[in-house]
């Protein structure tokens, strides 16, 4: 997928958010000197190609009552991590799931899965569920809870 300047202009104009006006795509088009048709066509194409993951809202977890946001981390043999990572990523309570590098000796974990719950018990059950999926491949794990949001901004890539 090759993005051209028009795609990048649309990205720059919308990455902070969509205008809260009845015709938001027309509003973006006017800012950029494009037609509404071009803006909408490009945005639909970028969604189909995964450049736009989705259009929608991102709630603040805490404001919705999800006070327990755990980064679960697991030590998984490299030869099975892709197969198991896909399975863990498909669990409906996992918001992000990644393979990341170990930093031995202090950090033996290479599979990261973020889970969210309104109570500690909810999260504990989710962790047990992940552990069951991983089975014997789980060579060790830890859960890091966020104790404070120190900074949170939208991603800004200027393209």
């Amino acid at each position, binding site marked *: 997928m090759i993005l051209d300047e028009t795609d990048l202009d649309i990205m720059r104009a919308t990455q902070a958010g*969509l205008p*809260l006006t009845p015709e*938001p795509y027309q509003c973006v088009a006017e800012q950029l000197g494009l037609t509404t048709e071009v803006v909408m066509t490009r945005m639909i194409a970028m969604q189909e190609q995964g450049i736009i993951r989705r259009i929608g809202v991102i709630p603040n977890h805490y404001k919705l009552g999800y006070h327990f946001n755990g980064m679960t981390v697991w030590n998984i043999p490299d030869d099975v991590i892709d197969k198991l990572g896909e399975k863990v990523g498909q669990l409906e309570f996992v918001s*992000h799931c990644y393979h990341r590098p170990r930093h031995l000796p*202090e950090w033996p974990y290479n599979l990261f899965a973020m889970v969210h719950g309104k109570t500690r018990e909810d999260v504990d059950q989710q962790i047990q569920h992940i552990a069951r999926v991983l089975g014997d491949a789980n060579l060790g794990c830890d859960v890091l809870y966020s104790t404070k949001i120190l*900074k949170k901004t939208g991603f*800004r890539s200027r393209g």
Partner: protein
Amino acid sequence: MDDIDRHIINTLQAGFPVCDAPYQQVAMQLGLTEQALIERLQTLLDNGTLTRFGPLYHAELMGGALTLAAVKTPLDRFAEVTEIINAFPEVAHNYARNHALNMWFVIATETPEQIRHTLTAIEQKTGLAVVNMPKINEYFVGLKLEA
């Protein structure tokens, strides 16, 4: 936040249409007026219930770079180190976590070179070793949190 707000949040986590009058389309589906939907979204953004509304771009596919990094911050320096790290515009998120590695942050830049540059600058300014954990593979990103 009332039931209507919850309904809006749950609906708009799944997606938002690309068409001439998308708020009107969603409002009809929710049994609201277009104006009411727009006003409620504005309020939910203003009071921090929503952190964002709009298209979420895949940073790496846009040519940008991301990494997750962590530092082991001495507790008596926590506020100072937070201030140093948060001052970098490249730092998008920063969370305190209950581990020896007690500060975890996401760096987002236009190029991979700038990631390395930012990591080095953070090490120099804080005097702390930064543990860099860029993703090797992504299995899933996305979630609906029931409001």
